[in-house]
């Protein structure tokens, strides 16, 4: 097959949308945290914990939706820990975030080994099945790509709409945005900056964990070590790329996933001329490139990474 032809096949776009789905959840999660003024570097670990929690719930007999709920709860728990340390205590968001990633990852591996001591190949579960939307899924290419996915993918797209609506159309969204831009103005309105920020980190982290759980309950059917493999860090780059706007971040995630799906296919037709590692490097290199391209005009939330103390200034 020709390198260009790939772009016009439905299977390519179906794969791209599937690859984008966990990134969309996690990117929305990170976006909420950063909009409120908190950089959450725990994302990689929280996604790992979510992937495991979702899979393990189903493996121990729970249903798939229960798995998602448990994953979200675990994410929220780690989010609460992150928020407690960084918001009222004002500790370095960089150090705490890395700490949460290390803790969530190692705790997950510990529990995995405890639950399945002797297992070498991880047991499988019955994952979410594709749910074609009647009529819409018959549209060639676009319909197939968007409407023959699993329910979780639809949920990922809906989460973007929900986040955008909440951020721009509700008082709570206004408070979240203001907490990331000008916290003293929020406090002047009689709203607690601490409360808003902590809430945003907890909710955002729950979304990240659902993104992780997508991998085990919708994309693959079991849990592997290192399965997040840098996806969390890429989501942080996607938030910057989307200049902290849900819609732009969604486009970024889909473009990125399309590129990822493309390099896999390119790898197959390149016939080993180029070392496969070069293809695997591309997503990470692309993230760095995207950061460079956007950084100059990036409109960071002005209070991002700046701890706030009531009554100061």
């Amino acid at each position, binding site marked *: 097959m020709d390198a260009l032809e790939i772009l016009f096949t439905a299977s390519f776009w179906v794969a791209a949308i599937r690859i984008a789905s966990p990134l969309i959840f996690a990117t929305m999660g990170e976006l909420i945290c950063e909009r409120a003024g908190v950089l959450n*570097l725990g994302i990689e670990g929280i996604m790992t914990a979510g992937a495991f929690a979702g899979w393990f719930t189903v493996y121990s007999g729970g249903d798939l939706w229960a798995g998602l709920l448990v994953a979200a709860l675990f994410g929220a728990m780690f989010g609460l*820990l992150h928020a407690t*340390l960084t918001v*009222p*205590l*004002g*500790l*370095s968001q*960089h*150090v*705490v975030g*890395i*700490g*949460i990633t*290390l*803790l969530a*990852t*190692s*705790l997950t*591996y*510990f529990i995995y*080994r*405890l639950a399945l*001591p002797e297992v070498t190949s991880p047991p499988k579960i019955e994952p979410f099945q594709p749910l074609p939307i009647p009529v819409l899924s018959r549209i060639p290419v676009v319909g197939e790509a968007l409407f023959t996915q699993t329910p979780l993918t639809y949920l990922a797209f809906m989460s973007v709409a929900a986040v955008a609506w909440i951020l721009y159309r509700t008082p709570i969204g206004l408070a979240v945005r203001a907490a990331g831009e000008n916290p003293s103005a929020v406090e002047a309105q009689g709203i607690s900056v*601490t409360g808003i920020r902590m809430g945003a980190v907890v909710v955002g982290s729950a979304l990240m964990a659902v993104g992780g759980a997508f991998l085990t309950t919708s994309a693959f059917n079991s849990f592997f070590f290192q399965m997040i*493999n*840098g996806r969390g*860090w*890429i989501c*942080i*780059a996607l938030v*910057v790329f989307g200049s902290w706007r849900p819609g732009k971040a969604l486009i970024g995630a889909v473009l990125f996933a399309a590129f990822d799906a493309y390099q896999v296919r390119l790898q197959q037709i390149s016939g080993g001329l180029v*070392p496969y*590692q*070069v293809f*695997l*490097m591309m997503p*990470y*290199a692309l*993230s*760095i490139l995207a*950061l*460079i391209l956007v*950084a*100059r005009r*990036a409109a960071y939330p002005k209070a991002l990474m700046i701890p706030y*103390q*009531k*009554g100061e200034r």
Partner: protein
Amino acid sequence: MRLEPKPASSLAITLLFPLAAAGTTLVLTSILVLIAGASPLSVFYLVAKGAAGSQFAFLETLTRATPLIFTGLAIAVAFRAKLWNIGAEAQLYIGGVVTVALGTGALPLPSVVLIPVIMVAVMAAGALLLLGPAVLKTRFGVDEVVTTLLLNFIVLLFVSMLLEGMLKDPMGLGWPQSQKVIAEAQLPRLIQGKRLHCGFVIALASAVLIWVVMKKTVLGYEMRAVGFNPEGARFVGILVDRTLMKTALLSGGLAALAGFSEVSGLKGNLTLDLSPGYGYSGIVVAMLAMLNPLGVIASAIFVAGIFVGADAMSRAAKVPSYIADVMVATSLLTMVVAILLTRFRIRWR
């Protein structure tokens, strides 16, 4: 709730809080041990015994501490200037690459010349690797946390490519591993027949040297000033960007030495499992040492001890050895809280 700065704490307080952090970590991990169905006391006893219970165990701990001292120093130096270098893992691997590129016979020199040449080249490579993110940070405002993290993945894939290509050992039976470095490029063992090697001494010397740089030189003062308050530093005429570049060079070079010392002192060749995450554990080492270069020695030995001890314990008590990573991560978080409490008091009001 408010945080109020405390007047300078006494030495007793400064030591008490870190100890309390260690205690909290022990209590929290005890819960996991109980869930695993073992007794915390016996597990911690086994960890301590496995880490320092015999000459063999203690030498093993020091061997494991060696790369951690290098990465810990690299991160302590960078974090002091608030340059968030999370890429020590990549810098370590680049150090390993340069060591085998020069040390497998390309330079037929006697040991006394070859080893310093390799060390200089290794440090230059590691320094250059961190210089990229540092330039992106100062010139374009790209956050270095994400760039250094992503570089870890890129570099590991690059190393994998080299080990299946240019650096592949033809006698390696198809395994992705490099040739062994020649005898002249090997760091001698400290004790005949034991694994502890001269890399440990170099690590100790580096820690002392970095301590002198941080405390007694203009560069050290500038780095601390930039980390404490970049605006203030700029106001008093410190070239902030240039200081960050120098910090990056120093930090990247130190982390790369970890890769050199592992290849040249211990493993002899480069494989993809050269580091079980020394770059990331270095963050914990640096934080536990409160970014003090001499403290890094103690905290690296402590962290190495947990890993070595947990391996031994895991075999005896059937508790997954991942408990070591949990302990290390928990102590990072309890330690940052402890450091906060030595500097501030919390007022509930």
